[in-house]
């Protein structure tokens, strides 16, 4: 399974239109600075980044499904693999890896060793461990998974900018949404 998704991720990334990441990295940095200016409270900035990520995720999932042709995942373990090997690769050009599964297989850690968002970024000390600079990624994962019937909660547990070795996101599956008939239909 691992090899299959690695290959798929690479294949899809090779097919998509690519640009150099600098514009993205710089623009993201400018946006985070703007958010800090607008909100001042760092916790609010984290929340806002996550919300923005959510809005991105609900669109991004369609492109993901259309370009990757991925079918339904058998279980949450497979979903995690797909996110790390295909999702991250296809958009950010890097693969993440999965670790620290809990016993129920409803929680995992996504480890991003090479995060394009943080290229050349250094946080001042008073933001370390407070500002989750790449929190937008948590929102993207949450938004994307919600559109495919999974309600998850994503939080940053480690951030490379706060002197940790890598960036690490904890993803917890809260609920699998069933294909309920919408209100108004009988």
């Amino acid at each position, binding site marked *: 399974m691992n090899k299959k998704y690695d290959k798929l991720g690479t294949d899809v990334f090779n097919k998509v239109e690519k640009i150099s990441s600098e514009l993205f990295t710089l623009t993201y940095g400018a946006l985070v600075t703007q958010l800090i200016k607008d909100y001042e409270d760092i916790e609010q900035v984290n929340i806002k980044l996550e919300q923005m990520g959510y809005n991105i995720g609900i669109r991004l999932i369609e492109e993901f499904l259309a370009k990757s042709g991925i079918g339904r995942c058998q279980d949450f373990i497979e979903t995690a693999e797909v996110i790390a090997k295909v999702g991250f690769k296809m958009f950010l050009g890097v693969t993440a890896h999965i670790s620290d599964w809990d016993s129920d297989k409803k929680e995992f850690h996504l480890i991003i060793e090479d995060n394009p968002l943080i290229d050349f970024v250094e946080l001042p000390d008073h933001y370390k461990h407070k500002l989750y600079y790449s929190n937008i990624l948590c929102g993207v994962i949450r938004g994307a998974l919600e*559109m495919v019937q999974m309600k998850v909660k994503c939080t940053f547990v480690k951030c490379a900018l706060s002197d940790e070795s890598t960036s690490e996101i904890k993803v917890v599956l809260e609920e699998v949404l069933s294909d309920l008939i919408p209100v108004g239909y009988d």
Partner: protein
Amino acid sequence: MIYNIYIFNKDGLCVYYEEWNKRKQSVNLAEDQKLLFGMLYSLKAFISTSSPKPIDPKTGFHCFKTSTYKLHYYETLSCIKFIILTDPNTPDLREDLKKIYSSIFVEYVVKNPIYQLKSTIKFYAFVNPIKPNFKQKT
């Protein structure tokens, strides 16, 4: 011969509808759409229970055929439903529906900055390719 196309979003809202060559006029389009959505929902539920082997209702249901029309169905994992009604002899159009999703819907609706989820689609960059796409099949 193509009769009409429906696109439903996750919440059951018919975000796009277009018709060609229909001889019978529908009395209440919104009601018809709701009925269609509800019927398909029940049909998919039925398919799961009645299937001799495990089946995924999202991708397992392909089409049904009557004496006057054939209904082709394609649903994405993100619950966007593409439905097209054609004459009974048209071969399977699921691949075409898939193409509409990936090359028109994703490109000109999802990636359209002004698109609001849960609204109907009237963007000309989406509407314009749909018509000729099927005109050749009418």
